[in-house]
């Protein structure tokens, strides 16, 4: 990683506005998968990321701790995803999963079915459970990373993840 986020935020606020593009690129790289997984398709994930970046730009001066920009941005993105989830029930685009699994048909058919079953179950979780499951098992984050992003203690996060897994076990059992 190049200059720390905080140094770039301060440079943007001091007038080097084009440098905001560096922050956008970093946030997309870190949270793009989260946005797609939260909303179930790439177009919605892309919209959420764009909206979150624009909101971050407009309120950058309110980022009180530029050295923690990434967590500040995450909360904007998470709110954006929740707002969009509230507008509609997400439907994971199975066609995209099929495209990604075209080779080695036997094994990939099984993986495609697994992914589709998980996507369908995710769609039935609460937003809070979905977020917890996605961060832990799709993004592969530690509880400590999640604590930094969400500002919620590890014990409470474990409880959310455990409940999400219990729900997923039941939901995926229904599809078998």
């Amino acid at each position: 990683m190049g200059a720390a986020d905080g140094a770039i935020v301060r440079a943007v606020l001091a007038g080097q506005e084009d440098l905001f593009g560096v922050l956008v690129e970093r946030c997309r790289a870190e949270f793009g998968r989260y946005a797609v997984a939260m909303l179930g398709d790439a177009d919605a994930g892309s919209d959420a990321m764009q909206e979150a970046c624009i909101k971050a730009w407009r309120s950058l001066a309110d980022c009180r701790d530029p050295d923690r920009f990434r967590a500040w941005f995450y909360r904007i993105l998470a709110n954006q995803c929740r707002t969009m989830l509230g507008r509609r029930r997400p439907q994971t685009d199975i066609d995209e999963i099929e495209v990604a699994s075209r080779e080695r048909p036997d094994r990939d058919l099984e993986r495609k079915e697994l992914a589709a079953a998980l996507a369908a179950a995710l769609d039935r979780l609460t937003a809070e459970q979905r977020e917890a499951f996605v961060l832990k098992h799709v993004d592969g984050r530690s509880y400590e990373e999640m604590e930094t992003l969400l500002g919620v203690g590890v014990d409470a996060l474990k409880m959310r993840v455990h409940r999400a897994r219990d729900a997923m076990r039941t939901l995926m059992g229904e599809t078998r």
Partner: protein
Amino acid sequence: MTDNPFTRDAQRYLDGSPHGDLSESERRDADALLAAAVAYRDALPPLDARVDSAVMAELRQPRPGMPAWRWLVQARVRPVWVPLAAAAAALLMWVAGPERTAPSTAAPAVASAHDTVFVQFQIAAPGARTVALAGSFNAWDPAALPMLRAADGTWTLTIALPVGEHSYQFVVDGARWQPDPTAHAQVEDGFGGTNSVIVVGGRGLVRT
């Protein structure tokens, strides 16, 4: 929805923590859930860089009350040369000596336009036959940006870089890839080496 919760040990297993014995069905369901999460992750389409362009295009739209000239200035690409010699001399970390073969380097000096910034790279390598600059800005071509040798063994090259983050290395004698130890950030290159990283702003390099 949770009529079949995982046991505490299964939750610890899923957390990657030490755990007691699991029943066959607990382990099967836990493993199936992890496998499904991996399959789902691998199938997710990535967000590509079009998101970045769309955001930056949106942000460059004039805002109400913002003077129009500001946006004209932002769109301009015009090199501005300023005397670099003094800055370069001040930045160069020089260890003299004809026996020296390991190159020493200096953090790049910059002269800025608005969205194009001229960055001068330097490396002191008296024993080198050739030195080139390769980086994310030239597709890592080890031959496209040869540096020029001065009489004192300093190699320099000034190039225009767009505002943003760039990684680079020096290529000594066409074969040896050398990161810039004076750069303010280094990152693994994925091939067992190290890339140096700079963030170029309209007013110079952004430092941590």
